[in-house]
């Protein structure tokens, strides 16, 4: 249903003026009054850390929570490639407008225009801010900032710090946080996991967190709650996400009334190291930049067991170059991933499992010499060898797609506020800017835009526009949420079955990958929707958690997260089933062109699907936020 519950609050005026107008119309909190407000920020990745430091600088009191032992270890640290901005330093024709346009198109026209434009607008301030913090971006010999190109763009707009851009940006944001810890404005609550959101009079006013070193449940109250808890790609068990990445915070907020937008929009990255066995705990990304020089191929023959060096040139199928002569190996992520799956499904995959394709540098090495390739990709080649024990200078790498990023997340309006008043959602945890497919180097940009340059304004407006009754954790709502959390953990501990949370998580992952993965169809999705509740039942009847609640208990932590994945997975499948079109990373096999390309259905699906929870085992309601495109011309994507 099209919903009047979903007011995106997009400001009036032409797109390039919306944000300025909005800032001007926003109410301000008097500088002396800011110290009277307290904000809870859950998550210290790029989004959470940048929000924490900026809000503290303004004078608000911040409580910052993270699962790891230090805010500096959030999953953002693992980002490799870079961060986009419309600086146009290379003088190659970039602009705010072009970055905006590329992002909307890259997202296959399923993002909200006004948000994306604002993202492009503030992108340049991010780079200034980071350089000011001492982020050691790559520079040219003149001492100026260097840029590289990424997929989905024809300009060089990606700033980078070797292959460690996420690390350097996060350490920059973390250092700003530490500055504010010193000034007394931020209190860090590390090794804490939010387990419940607390609402008082329908507003988000606090959380219950589990102290992961003592096992105790703790209550925290505030005037607003910000979730910056990252993506939920680990619903598939195997992904490129860190081990503790999870969807619990947003899922529990969803159960309290925050709408979940486009849960099925998942990005599957084409260049990851393939699975080597059932022991595998995570998948490792190999940077997309490799596709600049590596050529992707498989054998033309089914079930070919020859070593790659024994497969002559005429038996090799460079399928991306064949199907997409103009983009070749550099087609966008979703297209590259889908085609890899297709050739493997065809029985032509490489390696013992048949679930990989070759990424070959032979020609590049012949053309440029081994040294040039080493200089460009040495780190990645080393990492590949460390993990696989295969030398990529001697033979081709083997790669396979893996779950990488979730475009879906909690629905937020233009102010980044969810459908729960006072609950704001930033970074990968929200659904906002990437539509159905995220372009490389745009997640870091979005996280920092949200934290450094958007939330400081919109949160101030929220505070100044509302009256807040004084509350503390003695309030009944806290007691109830506390009891609920305690019951949840006790219930998990008392199952005393036979299987570990990890084992059941793996089982869920297999179903998700098979039926809600790269290619989705009605029968498969229905199968997933039938299977997932069975796994859930197995979990609640046969889970085993040794140890005790009032101590470090890693198994209990995992079990809590898996319990939520087991429900969220069903929502993802349901959303995929309802969206009977293909768009971006969501490929419905029924909706493809004669040439097997994704076919969007703008007449029926040019909207955000936002799900409203209705209670355990009840079907949630699917609301729609219609998307209108006034500034971007909609077209079917083509990379031929």
């Amino acid at each position, binding site marked *: 249903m099209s919903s009047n519950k979903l007011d995106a609050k997009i400001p009036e005026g032409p797109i390039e003026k919306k944000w300025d107008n909005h800032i001007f119309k926003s109410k301000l909190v008097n500088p002396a009054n800011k110290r009277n407000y307290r904000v809870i920020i859950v998550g210290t990745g790029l989004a959470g850390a940048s929000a924490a430091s900026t809000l503290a600088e303004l004078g608000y009191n911040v409580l910052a929570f993270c699962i790891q032992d230090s805010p500096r270890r959030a999953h953002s640290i693992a980002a490799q490639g870079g961060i986009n901005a419309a600086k146009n330093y290379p003088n190659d024709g970039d602009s705010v407008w072009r970055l905006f346009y590329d992002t909307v198109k890259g997202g296959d026209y399923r993002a909200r225009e006004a948000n994306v434009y604002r993202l492009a607008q503030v992108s340049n301030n991010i780079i200034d801010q980071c350089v000011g913090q001492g982020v*050691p971006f790559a520079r040219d010999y003149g001492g100026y900032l260097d840029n590289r190109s990424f997929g989905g763009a024809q300009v060089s707009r990606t700033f980078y710090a070797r292959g460690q851009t996420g690390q350097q940006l996060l350490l920059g944001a973390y250092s700003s946080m530490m500055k504010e810890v010193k000034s007394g404005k931020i209190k860090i609550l590390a090794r804490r996991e939010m387990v419940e959101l607390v609402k008082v009079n329908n507003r988000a006013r606090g959380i219950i967190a589990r102290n992961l070193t003592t096992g105790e449940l703790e209550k925290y109250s505030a005037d607003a709650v910000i979730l910056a808890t990252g993506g939920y790609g680990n619903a598939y068990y195997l992904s490129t996400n860190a081990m503790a990445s999870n969807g619990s915070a947003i899922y529990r907020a969803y159960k309290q009334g925050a709408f979940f937008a486009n849960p099925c929009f998942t990005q599957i990255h084409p260049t990851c190291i393939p699975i080597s066995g059932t022991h595998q705990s995570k998948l490792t990304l190999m940077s997309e930049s490799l596709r600049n020089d590596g050529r992707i191929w498989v054998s033309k023959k089914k079930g070919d067991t020859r070593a790659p060096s024994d497969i002559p040139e005429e038996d090799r199928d460079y399928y991306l170059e064949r199907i997409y002569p103009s983009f070749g190996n550099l087609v966008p992520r979703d297209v590259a991933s889908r085609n890899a799956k297709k050739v493997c499904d065809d029985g032509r995959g490489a390696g013992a499992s048949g679930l990989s394709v070759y990424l070959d540098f032979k020609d590049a090495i012949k053309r440029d010499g081994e040294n040039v390739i080493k200089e460009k990709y040495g780190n990645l080649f080393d990492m590949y060898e460390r993990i696989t024990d295969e030398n990529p200078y001697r033979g081709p790498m083997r790669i396979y797609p893996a779950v990488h990023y979730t475009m879906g997340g909690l629905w937020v309006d233009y102010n980044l506020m969810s459908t729960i008043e006072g609950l704001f959602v930033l970074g990968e945890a929200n659904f906002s800017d990437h539509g159905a497919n995220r372009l490389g180097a745009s997640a870091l940009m979005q996280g920092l835009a949200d934290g450094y340059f958007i939330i400081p304004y919109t949160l101030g407006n929220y505070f100044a526009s509302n009256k807040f009754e004084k509350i503390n954790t003695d309030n009944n709502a806290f007691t109830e949420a506390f009891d609920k959390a305690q019951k949840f953990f006790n219930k998990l501990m008392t199952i005393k079955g036979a299987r570990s949370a990890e084992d059941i998580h793996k089982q869920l992952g297999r179903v998700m990958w098979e039926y809600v993965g790269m290619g989705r169809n009605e029968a498969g999705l229905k199968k997933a929707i039938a299977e997932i509740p069975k796994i859930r039942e197995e979990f609640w009847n046969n889970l085993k958690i040794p140890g005790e609640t009032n101590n470090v208990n890693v198994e209990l932590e995992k079990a809590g997260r898996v319990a939520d994945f087991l429900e969220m997975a069903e929502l993802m499948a349901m959303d995929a089933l309802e969206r009977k079109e293909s768009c971006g990373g969501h490929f419905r096999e029924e909706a493809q062109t004669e040439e097997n390309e994704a076919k969007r259905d703008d007449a029926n699906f040019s909207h955000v699907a936002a799900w409203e929870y209705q209670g355990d085992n009840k079907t949630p309601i699917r609301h729609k936020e219609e998307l209108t495109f006034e500034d971007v011309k909609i077209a079917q994507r083509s990379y031929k």
Partner: protein
Amino acid sequence: MGGNSGKKISLNLKIYRQERKGIKGKMVDYLLTEVSTDMSFLEMLDMLNEKLIKDGEDPVAFDHDCREGICGMCSLMINGEAHGPEKETTTCQLHVRKFRDGQTIVIEPFRAKAFPVLKDLMVDRSALDEIIIAGGFVSLNAGNAPDANATPVPRNNAELAMDAAACVGCGACVASCANASAMLFTSAKISQLALLPQGKVEARKRVLDMVKKMDELGFGNCTNEAECEASCPKGIKITNIARMNREFLTATIAANN
């Protein structure tokens, strides 16, 4: 393929177990068979834990997160070496194929006065955050920064700053140092910021504050053993310590004048 891939081996594990914070721990032996050499070291521990859970025993607690060698969350002394035997490799990137069939592997936590054990192999390294809080930042508020290209930075300085900034804050340097000194960690941050114009303004105060904090927290002194450099999974060089000492000296002289 290397010689030891795709095999199954047995390992004799001797693991430090401590039930909770503040009590005494002990070494416990485990025999693990059918270990695939393609596993990462932590996947091998996952396998052990899966077995312990099945047997109704408490699994071994250890820290980890990214499993890609970048978050600095994993630790472990493996046969007496921080992050194990492979050079410039974190524990999570170490693979079982580096070990022999039947080999004994002693696994202990990172030990230092400033790193109390929380459980088994898990330690509290928040003292490293404390050092950064003392001054490991540039006092810049969001919105204040000039254009990013306003101040060019010589490429070489930018590269050296990046070398230092690559520190993942795992604490291997502290754990492998006989004095449990945090000099390598601290000097990496001080170097990074001292090498960049953005960090210069506060350089003197920074080095004094951070060094003072380091001493307060119970980290030991540097006696030039260079074990820190040898154990660093990110190849952070002790030349950073020399730079920090220079910075410290200049700052002390300036303060006394």
